[in-house]
């Protein structure tokens, strides 16, 4: 979607946000960031009519009064804003670095383009201080950054009283690789490869959001066939991740048979990815202008594969949902209330499991959606059981959607010619429902038509706080299962 940059002074922005985030409104904040360091850019989404607006507000003296005090959803955005641009959100209730660690120089703000005010002093120490819970019998349990299993790095600081978790503080940023900066450094025609490496089990969704954003800047229409193929690929990616995540629930409950069966079936989902793109992670399939060619024979093989996979999955998932022990292990654990989820702007699986209808496939233009969007998979429990049920629901709906899409996929070209240059001072937005939820790519070009700022908001960025909230007052032994049920991305968050 192509956006206008609306110049909005601070007092107006405050009012707009108060209004947009009130209970009676259905709007939500997509992201808050900056372009050069001299302004803040706020993306406001209207899911009801599938539109968005971008407000650009000049910042004076490199600081403004924090929004987080009124709207909890901003609390990480504002910390990241400081990390990358050095803009200070005054009065932020927990102001500390988010992604850049002690190794970086005190005044290092990698995405800032304009000079810091001469009298600016970064008063925030690089050294990270965890929130300390005081009281007799309270102890701390540090976990990570390197974990016991084969997973991404992150640090969890538990404050416990006996077996009960009183507070969990999550520190991320260990795999911050500078993806957003790199996206402004490579020729834009090659940027989709960098976007894919943002978080690779979401490689396709990232390439998809990237392509939508670029094509909107270029006013480029792609072919109907490409729209279908992109949508099919998106559902294949979702299928593969959900299968392994449901299998992971089996591992953590102790039903190893379920997890090994699901591990094997994920292989079959990856075979579908291989069929459509030649890559198990759908890398290089989507680029601005279209997709790689796919033969009719491959499409019919994909359909046959989907039907076979449905048959294979049915008994395994049935065994998990029939298992009384598994159900009891998941019920009422790691519970998140709908009101808190809404307040913190949770998206994707976590939002859906709390009864929030936040499936962007039904809201924003992406491939053949919202036209052919499946019914959303919504649960109300807010616990591990509900999150697993949402995933299972999405497995079935993805299978069905792929079948429908393959049946209706028209013949024709897979790609159109793409202009050499991007227009100057343009802003493009791409929103895709990735496996974990709403994924946003926001691209700004400068007066030469070069990408000068590239912002990505991974769904996990909204959702990490959900773990801290949901695990409070739960047993420490329930953490791994709760964490697995959310299955958030570290690399997508850290970028």
């Amino acid at each position, binding site marked *: 979607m192509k956006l206008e940059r609306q110049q909005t002074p601070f007092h107006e922005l405050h009012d707009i946000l108060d209004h947009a985030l009130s209970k009676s409104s259905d709007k939500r904040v997509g992201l808050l960031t900056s372009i050069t360091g001299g302004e803040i850019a706020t993306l406001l989404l209207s899911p009801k009519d599938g539109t968005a607006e971008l407000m650009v507000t000049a910042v004076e003296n490199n600081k403004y009064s924090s929004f987080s005090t009124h709207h909890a959803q901003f609390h990480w955005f504002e910390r990241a804003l400081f990390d990358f641009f050095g803009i200070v959100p005054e009065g932020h209730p927990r102001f500390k670095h988010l992604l850049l660690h002690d*190794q970086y120089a005190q005044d290092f703000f990698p995405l800032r383009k304009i000079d810091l005010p001469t009298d600016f002093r970064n008063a925030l120490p690089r050294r990270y201080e965890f929130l300390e819970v005081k009281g007799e019998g309270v102890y701390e349990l540090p976990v990570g950054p390197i974990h016991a299993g*084969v*997973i991404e790095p992150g640090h969890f600081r538990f404050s416990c009283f006996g077996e009960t978790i009183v507070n969990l503080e999550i520190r991320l940023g260990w*795999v911050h690789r500078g993806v957003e*900066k790199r996206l402004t450094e490579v020729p834009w025609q090659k940027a989709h490869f960098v976007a894919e490496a943002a978080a690779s089990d979401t490689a396709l969704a990232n390439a998809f959001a990237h392509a939508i954003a670029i094509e909107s800047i270029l006013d480029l229409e792609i072919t109907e066939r490409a729209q279908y193929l992109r949508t099919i690929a998106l559902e294949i990616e979702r299928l593969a991740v959900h299968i392994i995540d449901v299998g992971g629930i089996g591992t953590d409950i102790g039903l190893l048979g379920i997890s*090994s069966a699901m591990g094997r079936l994920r292989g079959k989902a990856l075979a579908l990815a291989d069929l459509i793109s030649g890559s198990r992670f759908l890398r290089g399939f989507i680029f601005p202008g279209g997709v790689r060619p796919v033969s009719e024979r491959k499409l019919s093989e994909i359909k046959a594969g989907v039907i076979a996979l449905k048959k294979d999955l049915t008994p395994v998932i049935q065994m998990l949902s029939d298992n009384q022990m598994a159900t009891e292990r998941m019920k009422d654990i790691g519970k998140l209330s709908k009101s808190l989820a809404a307040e913190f702007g949770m998206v994707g699986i976590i939002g859906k499991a709390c009864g929030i209808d936040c499936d962007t496939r039904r809201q924003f233009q992406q491939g053949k959606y919202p036209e052919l969007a499946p019914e959303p998979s919504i649960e109300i429990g807010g616990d591990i059981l509900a999150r697993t049920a949402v995933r299972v629901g999405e497995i079935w709906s993805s299978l069905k959607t792929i079948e429908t899409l393959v049946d209706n996929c028209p013949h024709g070209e897979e790609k159109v010619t793409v202009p050499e240059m991007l227009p100057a001072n343009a802003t493009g937005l791409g929103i895709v429902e990735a496996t974990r939820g709403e994924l946003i790519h926001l691209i700004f070009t400068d007066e030469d038509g070069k990408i000068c700022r590239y912002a990505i908001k991974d769904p996990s960025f909204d959702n990490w706080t959900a773990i801290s909230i949901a695990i409070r007052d739960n047993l420490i032994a329930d953490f791994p299962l709760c964490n697995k049920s959310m299955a958030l991305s570290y690399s997508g968050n850290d970028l």
Partner: protein
Amino acid sequence: MLKLITYLLQQGVATAKNICPDLAEGVIGLPMLTDAPCQSGCTACVEVCPTDAISVFNIDDANHVRLDLGACIGCGYCVDVCPTGTIKNNPTTRVAVRTREELILTTAGAAAEAANKELVTQGRTAAAKIPTADSLSKASWFGRSVAARVVSTGCSACDMELGAAGNPIFDMERFGVHIVASPRFADALIVTGPVSKGMQEALVSCYGAMSSPRVVIALGTCAISGGVHKGGYAEANGVDNILPVNVYIPGCPPHPWSIIHGILLAMGKEHLALAKKK
């Protein structure tokens, strides 16, 4: 529970018997160079490559290609555009090597060796600080089993493929490979991702906590060279800037069979990966 056991028994043995077979037709592997001469003046591959893994140069009026598999993310675009078939898709999954040099291919043979060497050290940031590798004179140290500790510093697709290498189809445990939860009892350190600033200290202390002899495996293009992240402010330039590396597994991410091939190489058991004809 009974149902589950019955189900699993019905499924039979899923494990593949053929170790490290070639990729199926249509699946994109790493590129390779053939004998077909390169077209004079053509730079099509260089233009499409997202990671500058390819360069074209001239020797005696002939166009030559140099391809660094340690920088390549296996997108296959160069294969698509090469008009002469000099660059082709390589279907093999046995791509792991012991030295960084072996990942640099060229059509120019010995004439390009010096430049190849230069490429290996180019971009290394902290060469002086790298600890010396443990001596592994006995190639059979880990011949029967190897306990591996995984440190993930990348986008996690490499981790997922490593996880897949442990699933019932690939089943790397049958070769004596165990993923362990502490560096204290690990023989091998498998690193995925480009090791940006945030993870450097953690990686070095993990290595330090292992007892000698240790092997280090760089899994994936990021771990080898930084991949798409190379040269940025986060110093995400690969493992061999920080630790001595014994085995390199190229690919973004490498196929589970390639990962198994790399681990077998570290164990000195790569002969097991010679594909048997059915």
